[in-house]
């Protein structure tokens, strides 16, 4: 399992822009110059475009979007048994883009396109994704432009895009967005959605700060004999231990651990009755001098999915970890 280094000093910081289009042709008209400028600068290009858009873009650019050695297709979200998690997707992209910028030694241009299939019930996925990208990519040399239709199905998508992006692409130029808000303020007004219900858990345990060893033992027992290597099992136990520690340290003196096991891998939820102070914990590597705040960040990188949300009953974390 790869872990990001926490020590970096980049001259170029995140440039996060939104572009709006009224048709597929309009989208291509905006994408083509961005790709051409990136290729001219000799910088790597990462894309999260719909297949039809990528194909049409390649047609416009004489068969290839960019040289293969400088083109990366970012991992697309897959809901899996844990459900879609925009914050998990942002954390994965941060890992990929950090590796790409280090490998190439250049800033990375990212082109991201709205996909209606990920809208969910109300389009909140995109608000969460853009807010999470603002946090997760904050110290990376990345220029990311997110393209949205001018008339999406959910108004929330447009509202979220206007609040989350510090820059707007209009007429081929980036302009300051006066409607931009801090990502945590955006999510305070529109919190991350709760993932789908999972049904009764296979194991449930209430624990306090003095029973964290029971949490670790319970998780280890649930993983035993299910195809997890020893090292992988220890990493997952570490991740759950960090989340459980946070629940009883920052939430309520007693919290609940729920486990679902089966062919889908381990699904784990930790619920406490406390208030979620930071709606996007663990998305940004803490400064090395910071004594706290590293546990969730490490847990995010050890698990296949980690989704944090809050509701009237408290704070909840769902983790998915496959062998």
């Amino acid at each position, binding site marked *: 399992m790869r*872990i990001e280094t*926490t*020590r970096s000093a980049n001259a170029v910081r995140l440039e996060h822009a939104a572009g709006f289009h009224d048709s597929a042709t309009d989208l291509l008209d905006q994408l083509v110059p961005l790709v051409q400028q990136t290729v001219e600068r000799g910088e790597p290009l990462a894309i999260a475009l719909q297949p039809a858009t990528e194909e049409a873009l390649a047609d416009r650019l004489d068969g290839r979007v960019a040289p293969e050695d400088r083109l990366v297709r970012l991992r697309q979200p897959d809901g899996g048994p844990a459900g879609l998690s925009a914050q998990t997707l942002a954390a994965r992209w941060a890992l990929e883009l950090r590796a790409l910028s280090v490998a190439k030694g250049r800033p990375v241009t990212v082109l991201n396109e709205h996909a209606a299939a990920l809208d969910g019930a109300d389009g909140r996925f995109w608000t969460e994704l853009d807010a999470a990208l603002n946090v997760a990519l904050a110290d990376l040399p990345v220029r990311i432009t997110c393209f949205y239709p001018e008339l999406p199905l959910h108004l929330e998508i447009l509202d979220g895009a206007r609040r989350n992006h510090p820059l707007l692409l209009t007429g081929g130029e980036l302009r300051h967005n006066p409607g931009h808000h801090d990502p945590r303020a955006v999510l305070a007004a529109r919190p991350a959605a709760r993932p789908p219900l999972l049904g009764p858990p296979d194991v449930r345990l209430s624990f306090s700060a003095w029973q964290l*060893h029971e949490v*670790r033992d319970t998780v280890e027992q649930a993983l035993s004999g299910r195809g997890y290597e020893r*090292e992988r099992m*220890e*990493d997952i136990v*570490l991740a759950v*231990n*960090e989340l459980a*520690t946070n629940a009883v340290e920052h939430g309520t003196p007693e919290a609940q651990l729920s486990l679902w096991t089966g062919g889908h891998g381990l699904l784990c939820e930790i619920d406490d009755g406390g208030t979620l102070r930071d709606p996007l914990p663990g998305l940004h590597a803490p400064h*090395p*001098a910071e*004594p*706290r705040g*590293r*546990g969730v960040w*490490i847990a995010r990188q050890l698990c296949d999915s980690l989704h944090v949300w809050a509701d009237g009953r408290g704070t909840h974390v769902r983790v998915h970890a496959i062998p």
Partner: protein
Amino acid sequence: MSSLRFLDVAGAVGLVHAAEEFPDAHRLILTGVRPRVQRVLDRCGAPFATQLVVRTRDDQPPVEQPPAVRPPAAQAPAAQAPAAQAPADRPPVERPSPEQAPA
């Protein structure tokens, strides 16, 4: 550290920061560290802390056997012999106790 089977992130960060507080010429040396504990230390910045030395159980220097000379029964009990015979400038060798040995 060989009896430590689990270390959480806060504990690992505490050790790394403690070592970084040391003067440059000083070292905090952790010996007999289990791989599971070492991975947590690595993820918490241990490789970047020059004042912190992490020695895994495999890195242990070879255990030096005491000379096969039976001390006079009247002079010293057998249990004290190795420490008493070690030169003053040689670091003591850690020996895992039977309950700390890997299964």
